């Protein structure tokens, strides 16, 4: 296990490269999902505002 983590002396280069790439993969997943959730929430707000004003008319 230690040998694996040391990457034959290249640990300081190999692991940061993996960390950066996987962090960007993770951020992209969170980012995309939160944009969709925001768009859905905004659409719901618009629809409820519409139905309220529709009832008032």
């Amino acid at each position, binding site marked *: 296990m230690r040998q694996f983590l040391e990457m034959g002396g290249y640990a300081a280069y190999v692991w940061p490269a*993996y960390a950066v790439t996987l962090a960007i993969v993770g951020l992209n997943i969170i980012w995309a999902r939160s944009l969709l959730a925001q*768009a859905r929430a*905004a659409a719901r707000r618009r629809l409820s505002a519409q139905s309220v004003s529709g009832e008032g008319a």
Partner: protein
Amino acid sequence: MSWTWFHRLASPPYIYGLAARLTPWFGWAAALLILCGLYGGLVLAPPDYQQGNDFRILYVHAPSAWMSLMVYTTMAVAAAVGLIWRMKVAHAAAASCAAIGASFTFAALVTGSLWGARMWGTWWEWDPRLTSELILLFLYLGYMGLRGAIEDTQRADRASGLLAVVGVVNVPIIHYSVVWWNSLHQTPSVMRLGKPAMPPAMLLPLLIMLAGFTLLFAALLLVRLRGEILNRERTASWIREAVQA
């Protein structure tokens, strides 16, 4: 030949529903492939006879670089379809690509820098491959900046779409930069004529990672596209049904 498929692809509610159904398939397949690729690249692949274990950066660097080019090409094709056929969904797809592409271009530059630091003895060099990849990052950022600066969605679509289409000329320049000019960067090992310059134990994890990242892009694009469609189809009646679930 029937064109109904083309018209259906232009229909926002159809695309919204299709994207929602396809996303889990692409997402889970991507997760599976990336986990297998990571295990293969970090554990199963033998150390390189010249670079030792440092070459394992390949398994995150090459997929990131592949994403940077593939996402840009997708964005430019979507923008061109949007411009030529005035298809709103295509513009929405192009707009959904930019941030994904920019982030993986950044990953390609950082992982390349970490690789170069040890192998070339420098973090950065104004080398044709590195410089053209940096220009790609600026194209993505310029595209996003242009969209952000124009309030009207249709005008933003046209202006940024034009930038995306013109900028696609950079994609073959990046790919062939290592062949056309003297570059520190190695020439292609996989995407070349004839046999790949790698033994199967090294090549297979790379191909799995490339497939995994491609499917990840598909999933990310579909999720973002749904949000983009919802924001554009403000008054459409089908939206009530779509957001109730």
